[in-house]
């Protein structure tokens, strides 16, 4: 078999294959480690039973829905008190409740959100208005 212009075609094919598979091998070995959100805050350390608003698994997947519900209840329906599934009471507030316990935003919320690649700056847009807790960086 004879290939016309093999001198050009074979290197061309090689370059093509390399470029097409570039995304596969470029990230090899450098996959970002899964995030480890830190629970090491004064408020959580003081808790006898380490428990979030919902069970942990649910919190991990549904916290944005919960925040959305809280927001609707507070802003539109004028309710501010939330009695959780386990009977505990929470003030439905992002700044005053979530962040009271999770006062380490950069090591908690942000680690996951950066990993998940949420939007530019990898943050939900809430913090353009809501004031994040001061952290001693």
């Amino acid at each position: 078999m004879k290939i016309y212009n093999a001198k050009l075609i074979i290197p061309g094919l090689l370059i093509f294959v390399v470029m097409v598979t570039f995304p596969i091998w470029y990230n090899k070995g450098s996959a970002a480690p899964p995030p480890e959100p830190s629970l090491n805050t004064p408020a959580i350390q003081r808790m006898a039973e380490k428990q979030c608003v919902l069970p942990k698994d649910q919190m991990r997947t549904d916290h944005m829905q919960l925040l959305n519900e809280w927001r609707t209840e507070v802003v539109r329906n004028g309710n501010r008190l939330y009695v959780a599934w386990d009977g505990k009471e929470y003030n439905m507030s992002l700044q005053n409740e979530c962040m009271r316990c999770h006062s380490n935003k950069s090591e908690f919320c942000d680690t996951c959100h950066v990993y998940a690649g949420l939007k530019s700056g990898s943050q939900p847009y809430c913090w353009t208005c809501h004031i994040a807790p001061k952290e001693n960086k």
Partner: protein
Amino acid sequence: MESNRRSFLKIGGICALGLGALPVTKALARKALPQVSDFPEALKANQWAMVVDMKKCWEQADRDCKDCILACHQYHNVPDIGTIKEEIKWLWQESYHDTFHDQATKFNIANIEHNPIMVLCNHCTSPPCVRVCPTKATFKDKKSGIVKMDYHRCIGCRFCMAGCPYGARSFNFRDPIPYIKTELNMAYPARERGVVEKCSFCTERLARGLFPACVEACRHGALTFGDITDADSPVRKLLAENYSIKRRPELGTGPNVYYII
């Protein structure tokens, strides 16, 4: 199965019973957690209203007193941009002629001409800003009568600013956070560029059993707050004893801020 009148009525009766049981099951279901409600200490009213007694305000010796404005703007993280065009204001001073230009005559008692009047959102009974808002970001809260803002929904079209005859709304032309010159209140959010803001009658304080920040801050008792639908409330008592005026009543917006002058 052959159906006759008798069996039809039986089935109908059972169905009616089932419908009757619906409220019972609903009542049982409502017990299920999670639940949402008000805080038990929340202050409630059908229509919150304010009486501003400018006489008391003017009588006091310290004419530069701005306690109410400072308290409000500090509490709500209101920025001080520094130009009139971009000014953000929830509670501010206006001249008599600008406040009551429809009622002002050429000849007034000297006292009124050069004294400022405290103005804020009137939390109207039929608010024009709510009528024009295309996203329902501003709305009349049925529980309290407060004209509220849902900053999450505001798209910054500024129809409400055109609709409001009192100039009670301010637009954030730029990111306000660097211009917050008072100490930041970590318990209340700020706003961002591109949203409209205004007085909230301190909804978040009422929910915690506290009166508005301005009412609490005034040392001279010039601001009175209460339920206008309750004949025993402090606002109604003041209105029963004093002649009061409202801003631009002819427009039919039904302001809920009253002035004693």
